[in-house]
């Protein structure tokens, strides 16, 4: 009994018990699961990933056919999830920034309007909005039979917007490199120009030069005949429109829903960030003779953005996780593809393990990236 009053022994004892309980519970679960699986004749292991999928995915960000493997199908799901969350994060941040600045306006009307926008989005479940946008799209747009032809070969119906798509006869690789080259060149030119402007105080045409550096390589390539492009023109049939680039209502509804929900959260963070900036900054800038709009753009926002990075990380993680609501309106994200795979193979444990691991892994990746970015922009105090 005296041993139990020893602090070190007790610490070990508690930890031993905790780990023991977890291990025993895990083992018991494992035993029941393998027992149950054996009884129900469900295969185990990840071998099923190499089997043929045999189901269609309505929207594919990377090439996929029915005859591809289940693993490939899951990859398509991951790509779709990443695509929609990335776009929603970008769109939502831009809208949210504008709304957040509008909320700080001195104009009471604009301020209240932006407040109602944020409140309307924050107080109603995202899932309800997704259903609502999807329903509106389906009700407002005509059926495929009566598809609207907005422009030659551009069809709008309740199965989505169909546009002519580009296909490369040759030069796709060159074009990709030209784009990358342009971006890198523009980035460095702009940085040098900015640096020189800070050093000398003289305005220069760095922005213009950077713009030409950005589009120059692509333009040169196209003018020299390095690429050949053909248009794939969609054909309107009786029941469906084939060919071309297809933007589906599920994708649009999900993108709109996620972007708006991001924008409301971002607006709140922008407001908090702007409010956190010392009032002296406003007054000092006003004393220098800057107008209110310029004060915001040149003095307040650059400082506020720094404060916003950590809470923004949380928002991006949330939108990434919320993209899983796609299954409710039928956009084939990772969860929906996994669900199909589960129904087909019965291997629920492995499939759920895969998609949870993917979500966890990507969440960690987003956190790491945002932490790195935060470290870069954070004020280094001396």
């Amino acid at each position, binding site marked *: 009994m005296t041993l139990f009053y020893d602090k070190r022994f007790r*610490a070990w004892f*508690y*930890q*031993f018990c*905790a*780990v023991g309980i*977890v291990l025993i519970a895990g083992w018991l*679960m494992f035993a*029941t*699961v393998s*027992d*149950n*699986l054996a*009884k129900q004749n469900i295969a185990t292991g990840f071998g099923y990933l190499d089997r043929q999928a045999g189901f269609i995915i309505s929207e594919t960000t990377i090439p996929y056919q029915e005859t591809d493997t289940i693993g490939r199908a899951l990859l398509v799901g991951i790509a779709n999830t990443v695509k929609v969350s990335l776009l929603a994060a970008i769109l939502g941040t831009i809208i949210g920034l504008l709304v957040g600045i509008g909320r700080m*306006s*001195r*104009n*009471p*009307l*604009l301020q209240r*309007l932006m407040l109602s926008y944020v*409140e*309307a989005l*924050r*107080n*109603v*479940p*995202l*899932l*309800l*909005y997704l*259903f*609502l946008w999807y*329903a*509106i799209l389906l*009700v407002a747009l005509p059926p495929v039979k009566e598809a609207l032809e907005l422009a030659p070969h551009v069809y709008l119906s309740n199965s989505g917007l169909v546009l002519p798509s580009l296909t490369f006869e040759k030069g796709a690789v060159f074009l990709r490199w030209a784009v990358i080259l342009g971006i890198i060149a523009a980035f460095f030119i702009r940085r040098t120009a900015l640096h020189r402007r800070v050093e000398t105080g003289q305005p220069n045409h760095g922005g213009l030069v950077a713009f030409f550096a950005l589009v120059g390589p692509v333009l040169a390539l196209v003018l020299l005949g390095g690429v050949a492009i053909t248009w794939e023109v969609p054909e309107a049939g009786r029941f469906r429109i084939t060919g071309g680039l297809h933007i589906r209502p599920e994708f649009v509804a999900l993108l709109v829903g996620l972007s708006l929900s991001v924008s409301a959260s971002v607006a709140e963070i922008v407001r908090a960030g702007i409010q956190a900036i010392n009032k002296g900054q406003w007054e000092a800038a006003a004393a220098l003779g800057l107008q209110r*709009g310029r004060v915001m753009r040149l003095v307040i926002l650059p400082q506020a953005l720094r404060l916003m990075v950590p809470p923004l990380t949380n928002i991006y993680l949330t939108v990434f*996780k*919320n993209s*899983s*609501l796609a*299954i*409710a309106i039928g956009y084939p994200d990772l*969860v929906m593809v996994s*669900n199909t795979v*589960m129904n087909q193979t019965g291997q*629920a*444990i492995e499939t*759920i393990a895969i*998609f*949870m691991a993917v*979500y*966890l892994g990507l*969440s*960690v990746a987003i956190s790491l990236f945002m932490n790195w970015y935060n470290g870069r922009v954070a004020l280094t105090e001396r």
Partner: protein
Amino acid sequence: MAELQLSVPLGPPRRARPWIKNLFGTPGNALITMFCVLALALLAKIAIGWLLIDAVFTGTPADCKVGSGACWPFLGAKLRYMIFGFYPYEEQWRPFAALLLFLGAALVSMVPRLWSRGLLLAWLVVLIPALYILMAGGVLGLSAVPSSKWGGLPLSFMLSFIGLAAAMPLGIALALARQSDLPAIRVLAISFIEIVRGVPLISLLFLATVMLPLFMPEGVTIDKLLRAQVAIILFAAAYIAEIVRGGLQAVPKGQIEAGNALGLHYWLIMRKIVLPQALKKVIPPLVSLFIGFFQDTTLVTIIGLLDFLDTVRSALRDPDWQGIAVLEGYLFAAFVYFTFSALMGAYSRFLERYYRTTHD
């Protein structure tokens, strides 16, 4: 030496600019104002036209099909189904009474002055059993209603409220474990919290519906509602743990050291000194979390539980009304969610003000 002349008379700085100047002070501002007025007028015109002028107030689905405005008869015909789901029609006074009892009790419990051990006890011993008996029946002459028939608004409240209430002790335990000096316990707590927070709620719900049956020994089945409730509790616990951790970190270290100096045991220090201070600090964020969970319970509709959003959706799919009242149904649901969330949000802001003025 000439006297210093001031060209501007000195006076107290103007406190607030008159509203007219804020609206029309500069050309830019005037433009914004005009734009806002235009947008509001357009919105008002559409809303009034749809809700009142073009709306159909009485009649059948056929009348609604002809009209271009809102279809009020739909709400009248489907209101009870949307709120109570498949609960037996004659017995629907029971969920109604339960809902009123719950909301009334919640309203009383929202007054910080009344918070006490007695109130907590009253919830645990009297209210929750009473609510359960009202819903489930089987005693006191009430006919038994299986949980598969529960639905609508009572179910939404139940999932979110019980979810958060039951997750509270678990969340506090996890937060304490995460702060613990014992590495093994800390690692276990951190892994649980981070894994749950790193995956979407829908994956936990899938886990509960698809995988949990496989974890059960043969012959044991757990009700689907209970499974979803367990998933929500675990999910909530991880988020509560993080909020409570914030509160724990805000308690000055001297408090623990003082407790140690008095020779108090770890649990006594936590129970009597640290937790009361920490929990008080985290009540406003917990209310915000509750708003989020009230909205997140809509996800159970994906795994086929009949929460409020799901009953609204199935009312829309009723063959009589299909395709006629889509907007009406969703807007009604949005109105209900908005009202509760906005009220809770106002309450959260009130609590923050209350603490700022009465404590610290």
